[in-house]
């Protein structure tokens, strides 16, 4: 038995939309590509004193009216000036900083972090200081 095969007309794959597909791919990659942008808390460290042998740098005594000590302990608690160590939440920290800045616009905030304290605790305090527009921030350790 003969089966008749129809071979009328040319068989072709439509390629007209290839450009659209390629451009869609480009647009997709353009919109989903994430560039590695640097975002962080910027600080300027103090320059080293020429004869900064141990202890020599701390020759100027500043009172509480000019400098606020924020001492971060190993467990994340904070000693504010000479108060007892305690956990201070963000909101409370904000109001303390605001109050200190109201008392003295040029207040120096000295953040003393314990060597065994976690980095994020230091960042939390510096972040709060920056958020409240404190400009004079010093970092040190004990």
């Amino acid at each position: 038995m003969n089966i008749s095969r129809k071979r009328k007309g040319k068989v072709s794959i439509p390629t007209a939309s290839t450009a659209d597909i390629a451009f869609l791919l480009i647009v997709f990659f353009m919109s989903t590509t994430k560039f590695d942008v640097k975002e962080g808390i910027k600080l300027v460290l103090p320059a080293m004193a020429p004869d900064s042998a141990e202890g020599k740098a701390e020759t100027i005594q500043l009172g509480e009216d000019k400098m606020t000590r924020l001492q971060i302990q190993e467990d994340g608690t904070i000693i504010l000036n000479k108060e007892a160590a305690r956990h201070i939440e963000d909101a409370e920290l904000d109001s303390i900083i605001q109050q200190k800045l109201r008392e003295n616009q040029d207040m120096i905030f000295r953040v003393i972090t314990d060597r065994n304290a976690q980095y994020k605790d230091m960042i939390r305090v510096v972040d709060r200081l920056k958020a409240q527009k404190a400009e004079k921030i010093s970092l040190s350790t004990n």
Partner: protein
Amino acid sequence: MAKINRSRDRDIEIPQGSMGDIAFLLLLFFMVTTVFVQEKQFWVDRDRWPQAQSIERIPRNNTATIYVMKNETILLDDVPSKIESEEDVYVKNALIAKKAENPEIVVCFRTDRETKYGAMSDVMRQLQDAETLVVAFEAQQKDQ
């Protein structure tokens, strides 16, 4: 007056058959020229960074990145090092060279949030020695 015959018997078309090829060439060009940052084992993942609210954008072209991992390994220019004594001055020397090349350099810290502050303090001491004083602590944006 002589008449000029304009032949209008053919349609004018811009050939669009090669559009696909052009688009794919563009795609290939971008694929070939894209360079990914490769830091495999020393990568401090973004979700390990601390969170902060008052973060600012830092122009990338003037930055040098220092990775500080939880185990206190420091990575600068793909060279891992540790600061265990006064003699470990790799970071200081590398930064002095960078500062000479670009005086406006900003040192960015990508530090694991649970790193002990002592390691950071040691690095910052070397930064001061190298007189690279502008630093940035990279952080994730915290929700308000």
